[in-house]
């Protein structure tokens, strides 16, 4: 039987992502009940020892391979599972983990739970609570394999203050095999702005059909998002009408989001949109129609014209946040 929890800690050019701290802190809490150590896995160059301050006792670090590709990532996970022999492997539900975890599961014959939003220990085993049907239903998932693989949706757990201590860093040897680099990233286009991705965003400002044009969307929604340091989002209706790109769609056929603050402007609240954002902690709705379903889910509602309310809000927040 495996012992303890191994956490895949992701970083961007050496800077650990918030998900690394969220998962390590949660892992420490779970390990207190499950037993066993909390170990981390870092792929590539990043200050691995720092993770000790977030709860990792030991960090397995693999370097020198093109980890932007799925093949090497899976190979490294496989090596880390062999070295750490954990009972549970946690990763953020990121692009990279979505590529690698199911392959790891198939290779080692393991079970996997995707995009958990809560984790707890029951009867000595890990239970993952996860949304399905884009959040229209939830269920507990138990993974019987050893280890169990679980990905966790970003922003599911708070990030505590940085603690003390430094982790033991153990270099992890990873040997690539034939075919590991059959699929290769050959081109990367950076984002035109440096906003956080919707799925990881802590604040989101979304616009709907009521914006009426791309120009209005750019003039009303984006400045409000910018003043909050929020990521812009859009309803399916707004995306289908061409007001915003697909990458900004929130809902069952777009991104499922989990921010602290979600501001919905001119969005009626169709069931498939609600599905994508209902777990947001605070929801603000701005809509002319007092009967719009979005108001039943809003923490705070303003019945009014978004073309009046949003610019006023942008201005008020602009001075409030200085």
């Amino acid at each position, binding site marked *: 039987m495996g012992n303890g929890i191994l956490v895949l800690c992701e970083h961007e050019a050496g800077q650990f992502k918030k998900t690394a701290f969220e998962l390590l802190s949660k892992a420490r809490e779970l390990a207190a009940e499950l037993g066993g150590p909390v170990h981390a896995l870092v792929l590539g160059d990043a200050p691995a020892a720092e993770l000790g301050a977030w709860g990792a006792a030991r960090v397995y670090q693999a370097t020198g391979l093109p980890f932007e590709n799925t093949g090497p990532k899976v190979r490294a996970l496989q090596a880390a599972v062999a070295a750490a022999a954990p009972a549970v492997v946690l990763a953020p539900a990121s692009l990279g983990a979505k590529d690698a975890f199911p392959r790891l599961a198939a290779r080692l014959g393991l079970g996997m739970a995707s995009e958990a939003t809560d984790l707890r220990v029951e009867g000595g085993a890990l239970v993952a609570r996860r949304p*399905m*049907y884009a959040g*229209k239903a939830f269920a507990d998932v138990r993974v019987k394999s050893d280890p169990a693989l679980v990905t966790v949706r970003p922003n599911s757990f708070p990030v505590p203050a940085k603690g003390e201590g430094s982790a033991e860093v153990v270099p992890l040897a990873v040997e690539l095999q034939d075919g590991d680099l059959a699929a290769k990233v050959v081109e990367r286009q950076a984002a035109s702005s440096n906003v956080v991705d919707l799925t990881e965003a802590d604040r989101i400002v979304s616009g709907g059909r009521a914006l009426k044009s791309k120009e209005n969307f750019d003039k009303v929604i984006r400045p409000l998002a910018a003043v909050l340091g929020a990521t812009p989002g859009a309803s399916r209706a707004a995306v289908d009408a061409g007001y915003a790109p*697909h990458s900004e769609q929130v809902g*069952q056929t777009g991104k499922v989001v989990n921010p602290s603050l979600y501001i919905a402007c001119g969005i009626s609240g169709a069931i498939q949109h609600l599905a994508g954002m209902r777990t947001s902690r605070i929801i603000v709705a701005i809509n002319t129609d007092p009967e719009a379903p979005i108001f039943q889910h809003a923490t705070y509602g303003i019945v009014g014209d978004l073309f009046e309310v949003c610019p006023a809000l942008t201005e008020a927040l602009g001075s409030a946040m200085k």
Partner: protein
Amino acid sequence: MKVGVCLKQVPATDSRIQVKDPAAGVDTSDVKWEINPYDEFALEEALKLKDDKKASEVVIFTFGDKAAEAKIRDGLARGADRAVRIDDPALQGSDALGIARALAAAAKKEGVDILFCGKQAVDDDQAQVPAMVAELLGWPQVLAVDHIDYGDGSLRARRPAGGGATEVVEAPLPVVISCDKGLNEPRYASLRGIMMAKKKKIAVLGVGDLGLDPSQVGAAAAMVAESNWSEPPPRPPGRILEGDTPQVVAELVRLLREEAKVI
């Protein structure tokens, strides 16, 4: 070149999902079924390859019982040539890996060069099966793509990489591709297509036909178990702010700061 498409039928995205019994899961007796929206992009991509004479045959793969045939017919009506439906009592209760084993065996048996899947099924939202199938076949994968350029024996697929960034992945065939919104505009079935679909063949394959080890699939092999289903917890009732625009805006800013503490 022969291409495969994995199709799943799921409750329509505008369905209300109800949980009547926490042990039984979602009550689907009253939902309208549709082809998983992401699988529609997968099917369209395969059909475009056929239109462009790059693919000679498009085969649909579905894991499911007889009831799934209505949506398979819809796929055939849009232009797929035939279908394989995987159904066997021994497969009941399979988890994602069990389903992936069955689909991988079927794709191998058919000898497809590209297997198109949806990015995820919008019912269980796991997004596990495409990568599992790729691993089981020993093929590369490119997941959640929104543009593909086809080369000779290889392809280049672009995918959103978060926050508006994109990456392009090059992979040789055979390959598993999972499809995101934006890849194409799915077509509707024509009347002629609907008529022709009635004569197209849906083969039903079981564990034996696929050469699967019965101990590797079905409920006994499943390592993932769901329980304690519920609908989402109701949100506490909200508050409609009253007053003219400057008043409500000022009140909202105050609430966000002092009560909600999110700014």
